[in-house]
């Protein structure tokens, strides 16, 4: 096998895994908690920009460049995105479920606008370049370099996966699912249900920020156009294909959809004349959009579906709650 092919394979997988991180973040919000986020691109962008600001060398004409270690950047990016998610969640989680969707959509629009217009901080439309890459010293050997980068992503994903699995099976995760599955349980928990949802939303947002940061350091360059609503859409498609509520599904979905996306982009590039490329690219989006709607209609639980992890004890608890709350109606 040629070195180029392995190199491309590594590149592809590394990229797919950065999306898998976003997907895991979304899974905490949507899959585990049922909170709808239409502003994924915004949270990813916050993580990417914050990390880039923290780690790039001092730059003329631009605020910062603090030249900090990459890990500090990642942490900073995740924390910043989590903080914004917390604020937006605090504003909307107690309201109707789609207000959160509208508000997160607003976050994405506004973050995009800030990235474009706050030139002194974000570099405006040209973005930020020279973002330090892990193992930069190995850049001389492309194969080794891409293998190491892939390694970093695998480590990040594994750690995140293990942590999230623990979280899902912890009492915290079980309460979260009970709230999602059962309105009565949520009502019985009252204020603390809002608190649990808010925590989940902030954690999910933080993971998306982390994804943005990791991706920025892998590509080495960011610009506002990387964070268009299309990104939000892709991540949703990934999670839905993989099956919401399932962490392995989230990772699998990311790799699968990213593969389809890359393949269809290649097909478009090959099949359409150069003048028609932009047009063809929109057709690609149409196909993904139709596919998403079709999955929602035909297989709303995704390809892998959801794992049942709610304990039997909790199941009983929630049915007991139901009987207490409304003894008169036979249905509930």
């Amino acid at each position, binding site marked *: 096998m040629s070195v180029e092919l392995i190199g491309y394979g590594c590149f592809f997988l590394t990229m797919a895994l950065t999306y898998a991180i976003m997907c895991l973040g979304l899974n905490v919000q949507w899959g585990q908690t*049922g909170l*709808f986020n*239409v502003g994924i691109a915004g949270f990813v962008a916050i993580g990417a920009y914050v990390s880039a600001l923290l780690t790039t060398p001092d730059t003329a004409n631009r605020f910062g460049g603090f030249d900090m270690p990459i890990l500090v950047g990642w942490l900073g990016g995740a924390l910043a995105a989590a903080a914004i998610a917390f604020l937006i969640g605090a*504003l*909307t989680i107690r*309201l*109707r*479920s*789609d*207000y959160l*969707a*509208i*508000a997160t*959509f*607003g*976050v994405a*629009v*506004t973050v995009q*606008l*800030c990235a*474009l*217009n706050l030139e002194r901080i974000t570099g405006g439309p040209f973005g930020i370049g020279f973002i330090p890459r892990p193992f930069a010293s190995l850049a001389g050997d492309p194969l080794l370099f891409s293998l190491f980068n892939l390694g970093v992503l695998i480590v990040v994903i594994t750690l995140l996966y293990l942590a999230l699995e623990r979280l899902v099976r912890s009492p915290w995760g079980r309460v979260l699912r009970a709230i999602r599955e059962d309105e009565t349980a949520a009502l019985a928990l009252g204020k603390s249900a809002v608190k649990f949802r808010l925590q989940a939303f902030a954690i999910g947002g933080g993971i998306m920020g982390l994804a943005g940061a990791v991706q920025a350091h892998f590509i080495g360059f960011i610009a506002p156009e990387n964070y268009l*609503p*299309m990104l939000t*859409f892709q991540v*949703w498609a990934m999670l*839905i294909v993989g099956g919401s509520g399932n962490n392995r599904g989230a990772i699998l979905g990311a790799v699968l959809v990213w593969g389809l996306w890359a393949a269809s982009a290649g097909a478009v590039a090959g099949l359409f004349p150069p003048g028609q490329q*932009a*047009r*063809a690219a*929109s*057709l690609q*989006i*149409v196909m*993904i*959009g*139709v596919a*998403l*709607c079709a999955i*929602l*209609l035909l297989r*709303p639980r995704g390809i892998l579906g959801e794992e049942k992890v709610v304990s039997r004890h909790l199941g009983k608890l929630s049915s007991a709650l139901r009987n207490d709350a409304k003894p008169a109606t036979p249905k509930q």
Partner: protein
Amino acid sequence: MNPQALMDGLITGSMIGLGAIGVTLTYSILRFANFAHGEFISWGAYFALAVSSALGYLSGGLLTPIGPFSFGWSLPISAVVAVALTGGLALLVDALLFGRLRAQRGTVIIMVMASFGAALTLRSLLEFIFTSKPAYYSKALQIALPLGGGLRATPDQMLSLALAVVLVVAVHLLLTRTAIGRSMRAVSENQQLSGVVGIDVRKVVRTVWVLGAGLACVAGVMAGLLVQIRPYMGFDLLLPLFAAAILGGIGSVPGAMLAGLIVGLAEALAVQFVGAEWRAAVAFVILVLVLLVRPQGLFGRPE
């Protein structure tokens, strides 16, 4: 405040208001935030463009400007056709997607997500058919006439404002004075009880789609006439539409229109004081303020 900014604000505001009426109606009757509503604005504008080009091709006389306006008879005719086509498009999307999800008893959030998918599909389809190059109904230039008090407006702008006022009054009367309007209010309050008293909920749902999409189409034709036609025109209005629908109070038609004007004027003000590049953030700021201070909106009932 600069009188010209006032005029700009009123014009943008009336387009937002017309769109927000559709958002607020779908929201209160179908009970979900429809992210695809902005696409009805874009599709409406492009439908009118296609029909009016076809009419102009058949008879050049239809392109001759009427009186002081920049457009010929081809535009009003095609606008009427476009309203019907956009209504049809909304019914088609409902039949293919939302209606089926309702039948499966999909949750609110599944509907929102589906509308998000539909939005992307519809927008990209427009981009595929018409490319992202801006288009115009008319190449004629218009001179703004002084209206007194330093206010100036082109005949097109004044016509659009008048049309918006007429439409809002008409929709308000439809909702409050007619049987179908009463049925719509009934379904928005209690769908099951509406069935019990003999209202055909499916018919009401169809009416809401056609009405909302028709108004969106008018907003799109206005935006196309006064600004330009782009596949992203509806998407760019989406956040202002939501902000206006929530500010006005979900379900309130006068509220949506008034809030649309408020959002439009706030945008015009922001353009004056902060710069045009921040225009799109105004709706977000308004949205956050409403959710903080009065989540039920100006004319809404607290839940």
